[in-house]
């Protein structure tokens, strides 16, 4: 059996996803980082962006994460985010509407949030 790491994806007000995974790819402020089992202890700042989790049963979980932290130690990976949504939870139409609205209001952060949501959906 391939080595596994335990992933906890938690938002400020709830636990979003937890389970075993073989690879987690997240975007930190200095670029995308992939974490596999046995990685050196790591603590990083996340950018808002999609997080990809390859689960140990071969599936893929994609989540849109808006700001937060990644920390890895003892084969346990925690993704802390103020807001985190799994791609299946994202309402595409709503995100598209939010994107339109953000563009017309020139609200850069809202536009970025909507964009991240849509990109997370696109990969599912």
């Amino acid at each position: 059996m391939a080595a596994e790491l335990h992933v906890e994806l938690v938002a400020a007000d709830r636990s979003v996803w937890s389970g075993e995974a073989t690879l987690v790819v997240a975007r930190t402020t200095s670029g995308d980082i992939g974490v596999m089992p046995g990685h050196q202890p790591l603590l990083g700042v996340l950018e808002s962006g999609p997080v990809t989790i390859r689960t140990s049963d071969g599936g893929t979980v994609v989540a849109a994460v808006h700001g937060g932290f990644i920390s890895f130690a003892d084969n346990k990976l925690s993704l802390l985010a103020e807001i985190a949504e799994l791609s299946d939870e994202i309402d595409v139409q709503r995100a598209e509407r939010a994107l339109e609205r953000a563009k017309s209001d020139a609200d850069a952060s809202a536009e970025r949030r909507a964009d991240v949501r849509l990109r997370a959906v696109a990969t599912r």
Partner: protein
Amino acid sequence: MGAQLRVYKRRIRSVTATKKITKAMEMIAASRVVKAQRKVAASAPYATELTRAVTAVGTGSNTKHPLTTEAETATRSAVLLLTSDRGLAGAFNSNAIKAAELLTARLVAEGKEVDTYIVGRRGLAHYNFRERKVVESWSGFTDEPTYADAKNVAGPLIEAIEKDTADGGVDELHIVYTEFVSMMTQTAIDGRLLPLRLEEVAEEAPKGEILPLYEFEPSAEDVLDALLPRYVESRIYNALLQSAASKHAATRRAMKSATDNAGDLITSLSRLANAARQAEITQEISEIVGGSAALADATAGSDK
């Protein structure tokens, strides 16, 4: 029906209506406590993970940060007081306010100026009535606070602490809120949020675990920079949630005793009403008996 009896009947009706209302409020509060408690529990994983991360950076690097270093002579403190928007919660708000007053008095005795920040209309009304200065206040979300609300509250506070004291910034941040101990016990407590005592944070983290040497991405300073405001937000969020749960529990208790009290009132009022009714009947009987006796006497006299 006599006048006395009518008055009692009316009072019983009005107390019964009040009892129904307080009973309904009790039930609503009871269901909200459960919901609020669930929210406190749901926010726990984030808070624990964040505490771990802060401990890791704090102990794993020698980074100095304005939010963790104590000013040599603190001259101004900010006090954040969490109250509720609505009353009918027993001593909930006055306890929190009292705790804030005590803390303020202590800080003033230490020679510090105190800036007050308030959440909840009740606390604000208390300060406004006494014409005390409130730097900033928020209200409208105390029943069900969200993380965005906590962010709104934390924003100006973090800004104030990052500013130089000479330019109107603060050196310390204290928070006064009501801790939800259990359904029956809620205590108003005060605590210092900033500057952070890393040893205290470390104590809160799970025991017996040796923290690994982390690699920081991009750097320890940047991680701490990003981490500390989030930590403050999460603490404020937790305090808001606990305060909301406590408020609902206090409301439930206050409404329960109001309902019990109304029940007692109804019992004693109906006893009085029964006595009044009985007195009326007795009076009527004695009037009839008296009347008939007088009649009998009169007829007995005329027979002779």
